[in-house]
């Protein structure tokens, strides 16, 4: 029995390099398999899905990709899932960034990838407005006219020159929040608060936020008070959305990795506590 206790006590001081190796294997191995495990969809993701689903062909959505490569594993699958839904419904997509430039690179990558899948054409089905720093100033400027902030798109051409602009702008040629059916903020930080407090509160534009798992609790109060139509939190939020769309994207495959790592962490915690109990009983 003593030998068993000695072994159990050793579980309390596993070398962290072994832990790192196990985490690496638990994360990497599932990614080689194209597996999706069904799971209960969070209510806030379902609300976001329904809000998108209610839109009609030709409605305009504005997506703001305010995240960097560090948050991309969580928010990039959200972008791709939302764009898949948008292009399935023949919505018109405007893409912008106003936090860090990296967000635009990630946003354009995702948009190009999904647009190609649905044979969508630049200038007819989607426009990349580009990157403008300023957050509050940008949001307020866009309320009057998008051209105040984005006179030219990411390629340097006037946004009015595109056929899509003529379709979506008002009869007076002005494009502003009134012409946008839904704003989707994919946020790594706190800019989502600005979208809610400035654009939703002042101009009444419906908003969905997609954010990292760490920041998601910050937005729950807004969802609970119905200032947000829906919310996608972390990789699970993206996986839930993919499940509702019935596709197996990176998020769904990533959830298997997440399951493996969570299970590993639980096992390690379990062993650590077992070791503590063993030490206490021995003493």
């Amino acid at each position, binding site marked *: 029995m003593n030998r068993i206790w000695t072994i159990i006590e050793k579980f309390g001081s596993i070398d*962290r390099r072994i832990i790192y190796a196990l985490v690496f294997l638990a994360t990497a191995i599932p990614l080689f398999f194209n597996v999706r495990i069904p799971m209960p969809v969070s209510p806030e993701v379902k609300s976001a899905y329904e809000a998108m689903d209610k839109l009609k062909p*030709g409605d305009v959505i504005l997506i703001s990709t305010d995240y*960097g490569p*560090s*948050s991309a594993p969580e928010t990039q699958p959200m972008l791709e899932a939302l764009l898949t839904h948008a292009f399935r419904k023949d919505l018109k997509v405007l893409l912008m960034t106003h936090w860090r430039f990296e967000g635009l690179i990630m946003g354009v990558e995702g948009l190009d990838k999904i647009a190609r899948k649905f044979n969508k054409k630049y200038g007819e089905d989607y426009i990349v407005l580009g990157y403008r720093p300023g957050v509050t100033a940008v949001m307020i400027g866009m*309320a*009057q006219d998008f051209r105040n902030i984005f006179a030219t798109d990411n390629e340097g051409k006037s946004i009015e020159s595109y056929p899509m602009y003529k379709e979506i702008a*008002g*009869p*007076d040629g002005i494009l*502003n929040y*009134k*012409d946008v059916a839904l704003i989707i903020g994919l946020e790594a*930080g706190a800019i989502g608060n600005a979208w809610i407090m400035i654009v939703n509160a*002042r101009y009444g534009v419906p908003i969905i936020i997609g954010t*990292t798992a*760490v*920041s998601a*609790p*910050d937005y729950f109060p807004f969802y609970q008070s119905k200032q947000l139509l829906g919310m996608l939190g972390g990789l699970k939020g993206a996986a839930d959305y993919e499940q509702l769309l019935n596709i197996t994207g990176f998020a769904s495959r990533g959830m298997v990795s997440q399951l493996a790592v969570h299970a590993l962490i639980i096992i390690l915690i379990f062993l650590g506590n077992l070791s503590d109990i063993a030490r206490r009983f021995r003493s």
Partner: protein
Amino acid sequence: MNLFLIAQVFIIPVNQPSVQLEDGRVIIHWSKVDTSVTKYEVYRKAEGSEDVVKIGETTDTILIDTTLKPGMAYLYMVRSFGPDDSTFVDSNWSQPVALKQEKQGEEREYVLGIIAKERFPVLIFLLFFGFLFFYYYNQARMGKEIFIRRLAGLDAIDEAVGRSTEMGKPVVFVHGLTSLDDPNTISAVAILKYIAKKVAMYEIDLIVPNYDPLVLLASKEAVKEGMLEAGRPDVYKEENIMFLTTQQFGYAAGVNGILVREKPGATFFMGYFYAESLVMAETAYTVGSISIAGTTAITQLPFFIAACDYTLIGEEMYAASAYLSRNPVEIGTIKSEDVAKILIIAAIIIGSILATLAQFGIAEDLFNLYKTLWTVTGG
């Protein structure tokens, strides 16, 4: 497309569709005058324009247009189709109908003619809090002793610096990712000055990597001043206070490198942090350093609590400089926070009780009065 072409005169056209505006949409309605008509197409044009757009088709005699833009008048026309799709006839254009332009932007209202109405409740609260603040400030100035509980994280600073001295290791102070406009950073600089004073007394190195160049300048001054106050300005080494980068993970990588190379005896994480917090805190643990963190970033608190030996949570960070200086006047002002918190908690509890009772039909009038009170004050 010439919409006025009548291909063959076999169908009786609709005279003129009637249009009705309702809830932001237009209901276009017409009468079925020819039973041989198989379908209708409805077209729209803006008043004064010749650009005609098809908005829908139906076999019924009604169509609803929800795609109007406000501020513009529109006219509608109905095209009737015979059994053969090439046979059609157009109606006359309807009367113009326009969706009213919504007010853009804000029309602000003012209280007393000068104060923005939506910000007036903030002013009331600020005045109320200011009153409490100066009341306890005055009390402290008149010599009344004000109790403040122990803050373990701050008491541990001396222990941490002492441990570094015994080990012959330096102390590392890591700033957060915000600039001097954040009260967090100002508080962190004040704590840095205190630590510099302690470190100077023991003649060990104090390494201060910085994320923001303005904070770099403030840190240099704070450390210099702290060491001067300890009577040891000769211990000050400018090369130990350095700027790293303004990139989040570049900063984390730089700090990790410093921690792994220098193997400090004590590490302080003070300021506002983001996702890089655990990367740095865990590295500090792996090099055997005692770590003390202080942040108001609610999302990072769990990581610091798990990885660090002591953590200053939220407002403890703001109370730090008053606590360390033991200045009774500064400590007195902390009391005003506590009193305000108690009053707010009491208001929340009263509101919750009244709301719960009102659900059961008890004291509804009292609850409504309570709600009105908060509405008037903007709560």
